[in-house]
Structures are given as C-alpha cells and as structure tokens.
C-alpha cells in the first residue's frame, strides 16, 4: 500500500469523542469522521510517522472503539496480503502459457492469415458475449444457407461467416484482448463455432493452413486459474 502523506495527518484535532456519531457503530456505521478513519487506517498499516503517529497512538490507547477499528483494519490488510499472494501465478508450466500469449502478441490486421491469432476471452463475458457473437454469426450463416440462390451448385459450400470477437467496452483488456479478431478458417479448415467457459479464461489460437501439409486449425487454450477452484 502506498504511503499516505497529508498535511493534516494524525489524530483528529480536539477530543476524538467529538467526532462520534450519535449511536455510531451500533448500526454498523463508522463512528468517526472520514479523516479520522483515514488516520486509523494509515496507523494500522504503519504508515504514520513522527508526531502524527504519536497522536493517533495516544488516541487509540485511550479510545477502545478506535482500538477495535485499528484491529479490524489490520485483519483486513492481512486478508488482502494473503489473497494477493494466492493470486500470483504458480511457478512452472503455467508461466509458459503466459509466455506464449506474450509471444503471439497483437494481431496484424493487414495480414490476417500470416500470423496465428489469439482471442483471449475473459471468464466474465465468455459465456455471454462470445455466445452472442457466435449466435449472430450462426444466424447469418443460416440466413445465407436458407436464402441463397437455389441454382447455385456450390451452395453447400457457402463460405462461413467471419465471427468477430471483441471484448465489451468495460473490459480491461491487454492489446491482444482488445483487438477485433476473426476466428475464421480457410475453406475446409476447422471452424470454432461456440465457446462457453464461465469460470476459466480461454484463449483461441487460429493456426493457418500450412502449405500442402494441413488445413487450418484452431487451438483452444484453457487456463488452469479458476476463481472457483474447480481443478
């Protein structure tokens, strides 16, 4: 936590009891004013120094309610530290996946088939946004299948629509995530039509056709990280 530097840092001026709300604390409301709470928070985190620290120290020593708030803040800080520690990526194999993502990097829109493509799909909107996009793409595909010219001998080979996947505006995405990506295939290649993964992050790689060796393909990369611990 960054250190707090305020000109009025320290215990509230005057008697701390002056800042208590009527019945404060009994209704779950903070019994102190905003500045006083910030002081207690900074004190609990060990971020006060000198005179400010001494002033809050004296306040906490004589005010049992303030002391309880300090204790609560410290417990909360410990919880946050433990949670942050648990969220660090594990050593070993999983870090390679991150290296893969970094290596692939942003897409090149003017060379759509020259480089492998990656679509990173956040858990939060994977089931919603992606399914919706694919449903729309499927709708267009069905539309063209149904209403295409009947005498077209190649009607059964109507090219698949381009499914464009992009994160919602509210999503915090890396450059690769925020790129509009088409999971399209060459004619006859593998096509990904739908992805559902409400609890895990999915990345989809498009592997272009390798001249004469294979058709285009896709790689669905499922991350081991799970907020629900569903390993």
């Amino acid at each position: 936590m960054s250190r707090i530097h305020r000109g009025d840092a320290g215990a509230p001026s005057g008697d701390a009891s002056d800042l208590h709300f009527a019945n404060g604390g009994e209704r779950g409301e903070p019994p102190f004013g905003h500045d006083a709470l910030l002081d207690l928070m900074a004190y609990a985190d060990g971020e006060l120094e000198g005179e400010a620290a001494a002033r809050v120290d004296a306040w906490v020593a004589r005010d049992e309610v303030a002391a309880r708030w300090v204790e609560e803040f410290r417990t909360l800080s410990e919880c946050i530290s433990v949670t942050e520690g648990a969220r660090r990526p594990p050593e070993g194999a999983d870090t390679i996946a991150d290296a893969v993502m970094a290596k692939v990097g942003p897409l090149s829109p003017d060379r759509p088939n020259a480089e492998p493509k990656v679509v990173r799909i956040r858990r939060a909107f994977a089931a919603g946004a992606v399914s919706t996009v694919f449903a729309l793409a499927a709708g267009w595909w069905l539309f063209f299948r149904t209403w295409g010219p009947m005498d077209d001998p190649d009607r059964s080979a109507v090219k698949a629509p381009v499914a464009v996947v992009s994160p919602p505006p509210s999503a915090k995405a890396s450059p690769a995530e925020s790129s509009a990506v088409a999971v399209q295939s060459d004619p006859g290649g593998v096509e990904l039509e739908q992805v559902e993964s409400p609890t895990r992050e999915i990345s989809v790689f498009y592997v272009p056709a390798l001249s004469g060796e294979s058709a285009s393909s896709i790689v669905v990369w499922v991350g081991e990280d799970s907020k629900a611990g569903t390993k």
Partner: protein
Amino acid sequence: MLRRTLSAVCISVGTLSAFAMVAVTSTRAAQAQAPESEDTTAQAEVLVLQASKQPGAGSIDPSIGNLPQLKKPPFDAYNTFRLVDRKAVSLKKGTPADLPLVDGRKLELVLLDKTGKPSRYRLAASISAPKGAAFLKRIEVSASANEPFFVAGQSHQGGILVLGIAIREK
C-alpha cells in the same frame, strides 16, 4: 367506402404474402436441413500429448505422427512432445462419448451433425473435473475428416496436456 375496400385489399394481400413467405421459408429451411446422409456415426481419434520445455533441442515422439501444428504457435513454446495416449472413439449423433484423461478429468465428445460430401462434422467437446465441475464447459467445432483441432492448457507433470481431436473416415 373506397377506403374500406382498399383496406380490405391491403389486408388480403398482406396475409397472402405472409403465408407465401412462411411457406417458402419452411420449404427452403426443410431443404437446407434435410439430412444428406442417413449415416449418423463417426469415428474420432483423440491424441493425448504432454508438451514440455526441456533443455536443448527437445524432441517429438515419432509415434505421434505427422502433426505440423506442433511446430507452430502456440505450441512452439514447447520443444518436447510425448504421446501419452491415443484413443479411438465411436461417435453417434447426439450421444455423448466419455474419455477419461490422465489427470483425472474427463473429456466428453458429442457428434452434433454430419453433412455434405465429403462430410463435414460438427462436434461439441467439454472437459469436466472428477467431481463434475466444468474445466471447459463447451466448445463447438466444425471440421472435415482428418482435420485436427486442439484443446490445451491443463497442467501435467511439469508441462501441459494437449488434446488433438480429429474425425477419421471409416
């Protein structure tokens, strides 16, 4: 009087048009959806590979066969591929086929559709944990025979598992 007659004509024409559109749509949809083959089965092959990064040049297990995708991103982050398992799975349209994986999870494949000549296959795949929780809830893929797609990312013995799934023509 004239206005009433025109309204009646418009309503009649509109109704007839609606019926015609519904009839045409139904006919064409039926034609589009009509099964082109009575065969609703397929044979899938699932390759279970372990990919890892080893010192030196690494190696690709020759028993894996020709999978040029392993030398391309994202797999080129690994240099060693070992064949863990190779299984043939008989699929029947709409019937899930389960395949236990080496990490205790379970792969489920469903043949959703098979159309055209040469055949085009629509497959659904999901991976669940031993207690039933979804690792990968569902993907739907369409591919022709011998066109593999891959599901990767499960940690396994210092590397990852790579599942290569392809339909094989009988």
